[in-house]
């Protein structure tokens, strides 16, 4: 299928001797939002960290299997820096760089790539901040430290930062878990817009959120992919009794 942006084949992952992912195979369609759900400790975070090779930064981490982005294996045919530039990531806790201004936070990725053209950077800052709906709130002083923003603004700044390098896939690890409801709503509506540019893979511990924002949903349990399918189907009539139990909140 040519419309599949990212293919995961037989992916297993370990921390030292403990296996946390067990032969997961999955194909992510292009320009859709895919939610990853599952109880805590099910390997959600490890799974998406394998998709941009962040997993290997953790001591004791090991991966087997293939992750293929547009036909290229990210482990054997690409280098980690390139992978991470093409597959952006937004974290659970907003993490703007406190030593950088709002402006510098947005262009941090571009500066790493050696882009110094002021006019271009200015343009990117404005367009990305507008995209995440932050421009009107911060444009009066872009030299402020990113750490001075509110939690929801910080997270949107981090999304703008991830978008600045025009990633083809955006990974989001519970991006709203530390935010209040109105910030959460803003991020959710942003996610729905983002899929116009990129494939968005979002982990959430909140099944309602998965139902709200995603087109497809994958359910992981104890390192196994239990079920993957259209969000509507997963939440209306899941095939697997485990998925059923999880989405109806009957998990021990």
């Amino acid at each position: 299928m040519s419309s599949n942006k990212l293919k995961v084949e037989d992916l297993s992952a370990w921390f030292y001797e403990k296996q946390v992912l067990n032969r997961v195979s999955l194909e992510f369609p292009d320009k859709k939002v895919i939610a990853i759900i599952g109880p805590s400790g099910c390997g959600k975070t490890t799974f998406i960290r394998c998709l941009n090779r962040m997993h290997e930064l953790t001591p004791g981490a090991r991966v087997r299997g293939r992750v293929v982005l547009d036909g290229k294996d990210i482990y054997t045919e690409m280098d980690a820096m390139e992978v991470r530039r093409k597959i952006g990531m937004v974290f659970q806790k907003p993490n703007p760089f406190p030593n950088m201004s709002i402006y510098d936070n947005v262009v941090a990725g571009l500066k790493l790539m050696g882009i110094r053209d002021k006019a271009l950077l200015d343009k990117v800052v404005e367009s990305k901040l507008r995209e995440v709906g932050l421009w009107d709130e911060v444009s009066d002083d872009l030299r402020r430290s990113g750490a001075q923003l509110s939690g929801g603004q910080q997270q949107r700044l981090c999304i703008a930062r991830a978008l600045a390098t025009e990633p083809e896939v955006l990974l989001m690890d519970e991006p709203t878990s530390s935010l209040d409801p109105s910030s959460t709503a803003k991020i959710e509506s942003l996610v729905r817009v983002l899929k116009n540019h990129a494939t968005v893979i979002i982990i959430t511990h909140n099944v309602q959120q998965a139902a709200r924002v995603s087109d497809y949903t994958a359910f992981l349990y104890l390192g196994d992919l239990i079920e993957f399918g259209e969000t509507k189907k997963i939440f209306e009539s899941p095939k697997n009794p485990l998925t059923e139990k999880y989405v109806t909140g009957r998990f021990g």
Partner: protein
Amino acid sequence: MNMRRTKDLLMKLTSTLITLIMAVPLLWIILDVIIKGASALSLDFIISLPAPFGEVGGGIGNAILGTLIINAMACVIGLPLGIATGIYLSEYSNGSKISALLRTAIDTLSGIPSIILGLFAFSLIVIRVGHYTALAAAFALSIIMIPVVSKATEEGMKTVSVDIREGAIALGLPKWVITIKIVLGIAKSSVITSSLLAFARISGETAPLLFTSLFSYYWPRGLNEPMASLQVLIYNYAMSGFESWVVKAWGASLLLMLLVLSINILVRRFSTKVG
């Protein structure tokens, strides 16, 4: 992309190389002291007095004993003061003027070069009693111990959680009992660790002894008199330039190093097990 990877690789190589290089002096010093010191070692060396100048043989027994006596006296003065001020700062300070002044005193004392503490002990004690004395040396060394022990005690006690304290208060115990039995009991390991490290530290300190206990070629006969010590012996003998004395200085260095490093290694193992 290439430039970036090259820079990264370069930093990796540089940092690896420099770290490896820093292992060289340690191994060199340790091996050097062991090789040169071992030839001087013998039972006689450890238990007998230095031979009169020009004669062969003799040992450093009085210096070993002297170091232990001076250290013991320093502990007698320094540990109670260090622990008590640590307790005071952690539990009873309440932001009073005394505690602010005490904190300044302890912070400043910890940064004062040890030779200045020797001069202080000289001015305060040696000048007044009119002769060099081991008491002055112990006093100078105890000032080195106080900040080390005090800070560790305070920090150890501060880590005791409010829950535990409130639990003890809820039992109706008076504050001094809570402080000594419960809070200090929990902070015990950091107090012991810091005391041992302070002991190791003063065992190696030489500058404060130079003008206080000075040196002696005889066995200690009392505390209020000049006394030999390993540290000063190493300095005197090494600087003398006489080959037989330099060999003895290496022997003394080996003993001193064994004492100091074994305490340090012991404390490291002990504290990593606790952590």
